[in-house]
């Protein structure tokens, strides 16, 4: 460690090395809005903690409705993540490793649900997979399966909204992984599928894990597409966010309690991903 060179603009500080460089020199025109922005993001969450009915919490959370909603949310978000993994990883591979006409368009379409209002996604799903939808009609006629307003419908809506997160994350990991490892596998006699399974997948496993957690968190919080496509039936399609929204009208304390649970889950996800997403160089 070389000692810090004395600066002409600031007096030597006894603990100068521990102090972030230039923290004292931030102009007020930037510092003020920055602090306001921070407060804007943090205060509502603090409010949630302050107003939480801590003593009544155990009772509220163990009530059958809450428990039901929580169970349904965890189950559907996990299943939606599974669907996103099974379909999204190969899709990410296709986008990252192959070249076909219209690849850029496909990539844009894949990321569209990221920016699409979820309600619009729900409407679109209804039009295609609804009982009278373009595909739903045939699904109903041939298999008797209808998706809307079922738990499966919840999974479909959540997967629709969450999968792009996974695809983007995995595609990024694939692009960062050296494709020459796949060439090395090929020279050893591995087919492209074997190379993918035994070389590429292990190499991008951290990216897949991060993408899956991200998709799972997004699915857990999904509201718009779910309520539009799957409705709001307690025990069947009423997930946590839907229960929170409904409880705000009838039982605000329960809504706060439910919100706390979702907040705790979000913090846990962030903690789990902090090495990948929170550490900026």
């Amino acid at each position: 460690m070389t000692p810090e060179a004395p600066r002409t603009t600031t007096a030597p500080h006894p603990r100068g090395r521990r102090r972030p460089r230039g923290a004292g020199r931030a102009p007020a025109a930037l510092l003020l809005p920055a602090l306001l922005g921070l407060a804007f993001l943090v205060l509502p969450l603090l409010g949630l903690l302050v107003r939480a009915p801590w003593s009544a919490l155990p009772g509220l959370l163990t009530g059958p409705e809450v428990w039901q909603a929580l169970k349904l949310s965890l189950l559907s978000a996990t299943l939606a993540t599974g669907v996103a993994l099974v379909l999204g990883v190969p899709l990410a591979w296709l986008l990252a490793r192959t070249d076909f006409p219209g690849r850029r368009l496909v990539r844009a379409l894949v990321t569209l649900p990221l920016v699409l209002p979820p309600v619009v996604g729900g409407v679109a799903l209804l039009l295609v997979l609804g009982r009278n939808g373009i595909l739903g009609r045939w699904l109903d006629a041939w298999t008797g399966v209808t998706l809307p307003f079922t738990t499966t419908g919840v999974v479909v809506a959540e997967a629709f909204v969450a999968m792009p997160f996974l695809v983007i994350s995995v595609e990024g990991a694939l692009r960062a992984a050296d494709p020459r490892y796949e060439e090395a596998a090929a020279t050893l006699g591995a087919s492209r599928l074997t190379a993918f399974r035994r070389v590429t997948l292990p190499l991008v496993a951290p990216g897949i894990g991060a993408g899956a957690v991200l998709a799972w968190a997004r699915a857990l919080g999904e509201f718009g597409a779910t309520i539009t496509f799957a409705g709001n039936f307690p025990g069947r399609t009423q997930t946590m966010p839907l229960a929170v929204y409904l409880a705000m009208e009838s039982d605000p304390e329960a809504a706060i309690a439910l919100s706390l649970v979702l907040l705790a889950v979000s913090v846990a996800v962030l903690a789990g991903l902090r090495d990948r997403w929170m550490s900026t160089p």
Partner: protein
Amino acid sequence: MTRPVAHPRAGTPALDARLTVSRGAFTLDVPLAAEPGEVLALLGPNGAGKSTALRALAGLLPLTDGHLRLDGAPLDSPADGLFRPAEQRPIGVVFQDYLLFPHLSALDNVAFGLRARGLRRAAARAGALPWLERMGLAEHAGHRPAKLSGGQAQRVALARALAVRPRLLLLDEPLAALDARTRLDVRAELRRHLAEFEAVAVLVTHDPLDAMVLADRLVVIEGGRVVQSGRPAEVARHPRTDYIARLVGLNLYQGTADGRRVTLPEGQALATDEELTGPAFVAFPPDAVTLHRHRPETSARNLFPCTVAGLDLHGDRFRVDLTGPLPMAADLTPTAAAELDLSPGTRVWAAVKATQTHAYPA
């Protein structure tokens, strides 16, 4: 080292290729032939097309023209629309930076090819272990590549390529990633393994020493074409391009021979000891040149006025770059250099004895 081997199609070499790859303005067009047990080195400057040739041999890049046959079986034949990709070729490749799979142990890296051929994990490992033992790496079998030294990683890469018993072994700058000291050991060891290897080996390198030590035959590529090929000693003695002359440290000139005289296009004439007529090369080593501040009384028949362009210490010798009617490099002892008091711009006379030049037909 070439051994006669029973062959399915007598008269056809085991490796029989004409590698033609067109890529925009660059065209590679290299005929190659080798027998089992032979080690071929593709030598050339950066951008000459060596790597393209290696990728075409490996099946990572299809030919645009020409053909590639191994042991009589076609691997690539654009005219017939036939292309067998890398995973269907009986090859082994040692990549420049080895490309050991970072998530697998050394043993599983070596076992990878056997597993890809359908062996169960235990059987593949059992087949891989002897190769690690041969490389003296049995105690590192469980280590990930990140824990191996450069020389160890290189040997694991070689074991991985050999474990599938390839009919064509390809090595891409196998020593380039090693530091000078490791390089010496690994080169000697690689030479031993290549000598034991029973099929065709093709080595790509830009290092003449690697090529000379490891290969039975050199194929020198420049600008996508073969400019010279032959046994290493032959190529080193009779360079045919400036690139090789510089690699082997010779001054090289091309001109027209008439008896014991070779006239260069610029009008200079070099006296030689060999009787020749027609287009010819003349080569002489830098230490055959003696330098003088004044025109010397010398028996040397080749005497040229020169100007010092630069000085460089090469080991225990001074390498002097000379410009003038006949540009050349001269090697001097430090004592001689000090006595001559040379510096860039100094005008000197360079003398070369005819007996120390070597002329051969172009």
